[in-house]
């Protein structure tokens, strides 16, 4: 019988009334009980299903009961192989680790493990695989699609204790480090050597490189340094059965066999745990210029992008845009932020990075002049020192934080042809009218829109107007329903909007090959119905490959 207990919360997002259409956290009253004090019987009382109204559709998610439940013997075994300090059952730590950054997804894991090296990870996975214990790999827990937190009582395996930098070659710029290194710390380390990380995102102070690689993170400098698929030279991974696979090459070119690391990049923890990364890092060039510009309409933004690519060419390192609704939100909810320009319809942030200050300034000035003469630029300011530059970035990077402060947020990350990119924002505004604020901003240089809908509280009627419309619209315009955030739990059943069924079937076969017991990050990434179907087929007929 399903046990449903309302999670008492003072969170204003969740209203107060009980009712069929309310979105609220339903959690166990038992989940916070300390494991040593509770009996195994209480463990069995773990809720077997949760209503997932915030996910892609209002369906009921059931715990896969072929997964074992954690027992006291399991805890003892982990303590034996990892030491007491790395086996965490503390309520406070678990309650943080069970919730994602957006506070939208909450699990009920009873156990957090913090291995200190690859061997420990291997022992953990080997044991969990043999015991049919589900596992969620967790890095900085900054993901935006619910992929980094448990859905039910999966064991959380955190990479936070594996944060050593193993080596750096300051001629080639190749960095080798453990998966738990925080992105910002890596960047500071490289800064002293005259290099930098090839990716930069708002979460840099918390996100870990292993997580970045597992989600194939994009970020602000994608337009200049490209994808992690190009910059990652090698990985060391642990497979679900505990096998350690060393693919930690540090070579730019190595055409020997299938490039297996590409499977792990972007696999969101579904094929194994990444334990080490070797990555190519670009030189940190000294001439950095940042301009905050205003455009009257979206068409001007597009023309400005083309103009920037033509006139600034190789020195362009970031091209971001935000609409006036985004600017207004940031100004209302963040302290110490001011609009450098008079109010405008669209704002564009352009950064150039080069090795010659005067050369870059000349290019920029010619670009500005040309754009102003053609009327595609209505106003702009240039940062004169690093403080001004970081205040410009704070506006763009602060939008996500402002959205969190403003209330409930429905977050979509779409890749679309640039001509149509803003149309979805306008259509969504028409659909939702007064009931929500619709914001559009993002990496215009990569054709990546961050569509965000802000409401005071989560509301089913609003949600039903958004999904599946936004996915259908994106699919119709041959875009991607997840440009860089990944699928996670939020879009686990939506992949068909952007990939053919043949491709998805092949993905399920690969998953079945690497993780036959399905213990790695279950319920996420690929459609559950497909995975269970593949498992059935495999058990009846043997693996297809």
């Amino acid at each position, binding site marked *: 019988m399903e046990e449903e207990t309302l999670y008492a919360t003072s969170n204003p997002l969740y209203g107060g009334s009980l009712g069929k259409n309310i979105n609220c956290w339903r959690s166990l009253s038992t989940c916070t009980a300390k494991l040593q004090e509770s009996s195994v019987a209480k463990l069995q009382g773990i809720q077997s299903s949760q209503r997932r109204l915030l996910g892609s559709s209002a369906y009921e998610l059931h715990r896969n009961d072929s997964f074992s439940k954690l027992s006291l013997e399991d805890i003892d075994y982990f303590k034996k192989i990892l030491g007491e300090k790395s086996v965490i059952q503390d309520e406070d730590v678990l309650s943080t680790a069970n919730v994602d950054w957006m506070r939208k997804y909450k699990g009920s894991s009873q156990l957090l493990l913090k291995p200190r090296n690859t061997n420990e990870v291997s022992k953990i996975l080997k044991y969990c695989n043999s015991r049919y214990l589900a596992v969620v790999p967790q890095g900085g827990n900054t993901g935006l699609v619910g992929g980094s937190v448990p859905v039910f009582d999966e064991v959380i395996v955190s990479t936070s204790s594996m944060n050593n930098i193993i080596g750096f070659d300051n001629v080639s710029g190749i960095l080798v480090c453990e998966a738990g290194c925080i992105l910002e710390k890596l960047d500071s380390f490289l*800064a002293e050597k005259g290099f930098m990380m090839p990716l930069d995102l708002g979460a840099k102070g918390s996100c870990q490189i292993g997580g970045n690689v597992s989600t194939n993170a994009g970020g602000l400098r994608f337009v200049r340094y490209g994808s992690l698929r190009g910059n990652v030279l090698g990985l060391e991974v642990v497979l679900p059965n505990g096998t350690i696979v060393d693919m930690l090459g540090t070579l730019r070119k190595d055409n020997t066999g299938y490039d297996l690391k590409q499977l792990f990049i972007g696999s969101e923890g579904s094929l194994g745990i990444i334990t080490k990364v070797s990555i190519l890092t670009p030189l940190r060039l*000294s001439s*950095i210029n940042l*301009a*905050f*510009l205003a455009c009257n309409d979206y068409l001007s933004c597009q023309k400005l992008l083309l103009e920037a690519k033509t006139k600034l060419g190789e020195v362009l390192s970031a091209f971001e845009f935000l609409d006036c609704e985004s600017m207004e939100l940031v100004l209302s909810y963040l302290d110490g932020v001011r609009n*450098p320009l008079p109010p405008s319809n669209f704002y564009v942030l352009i950064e150039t990075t080069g090795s010659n*200050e005067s050369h870059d300034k000349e290019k920029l*000035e010619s670009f*500005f*002049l040309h754009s*102003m003469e053609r009327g595609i*630029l209505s*106003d*702009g*300011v*240039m*940062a*004169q*020192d*690093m*403080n*001004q530059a*970081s205040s410009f970035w704070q506006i763009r990077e602060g939008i996500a934080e402002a959205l969190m402060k403003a209330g409930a947020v429905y977050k979509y990350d779409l890749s679309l042809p640039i001509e149509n990119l803003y149309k979805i924002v306008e259509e969504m505004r028409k659909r939702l009218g007064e009931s929500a604020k619709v914001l559009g901003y993002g990496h215009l240089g990569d054709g990546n829109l961050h569509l965000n809908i802000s409401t005071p509280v989560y509301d089913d009627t609003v949600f039903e107007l958004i999904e599946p419309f936004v996915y259908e619209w994106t699919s119709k315009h041959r875009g991607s329903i997840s440009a860089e955030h990944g699928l996670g739990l939020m879009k686990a059943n939506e992949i068909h909007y952007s990939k053919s069924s043949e491709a998805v079937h092949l993905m399920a076969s690969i998953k079945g090959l690497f993780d036959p017991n399905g213990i790695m990050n279950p319920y996420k990434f690929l459609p559950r119905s497909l995975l269970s179907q593949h498992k059935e087929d495999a058990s009846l007929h043997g693996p297809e490959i």
Partner: protein
Amino acid sequence: MKILVAVKRVIDYAVKIRVKPDKSGVETNNVKMSMNPFCEIALEEALRIRESGNASEVVIVSMGGAQCTDALRTGLAMGADRAIHVSTDQYLHPLSVSKLLKSLVAIENPGLLLLGKQAIDDDCNQTGQMVAGLLKWPQGTFASKVVLDKAKSTATVEREVDGGLETLCLDLPAVITSDLRLNQPRYATLPNIMKAKSKVIKKVTPEELNVEIKPDIEIVEVNEPPKRKSGVKVSSVDELIDKLKNEARVL
């Protein structure tokens, strides 16, 4: 009334500086440089005074090698009317800067000389005071508020001092140095950046100004501050007392 503002090009405030291996100074190669933040504030104040109608022209001056023009271009982009570059490759200590400013004041005849209270590279906090002494002008340093009275030809300056705020009334012409809370400098807008390209930067040399640069200070050595030692866990009260007595010597 004309306002003369002195600006200095320094290592950007946000850069992590490193001492050169030969300890002769700080590494400036390939390091981001920008206008001294206090000079920016001084220039912003000058521009506001001009915009309120109390001044007719804002002239900026910077002294040093060819790259000074970067700071001058920034100043012109913020809205200064014209710029002067005192060109020299010699190291300029505050006294030399003050003597050069004195000569420029004789040529330009400004009613107000605005400077930043100190430069963030040497932290001298001397130029404003010295030039006021050389000119025998009144000075209002560490200004957090400046109000001009055109009719009476005075400036009322609120100064940030250790005990609080001190308000002075100065007869013009006077020297005022800016402190952090005086204002928030404007951004350089694109139209102004474009206009700045056609504004004049006049080049002069110390010889033309009849000033002899005689360095009377020699920098002997530059060292990093001692690295912070990591903390130590003690295992007993006795060990703590022993360390406090013998290592920290506070007991």
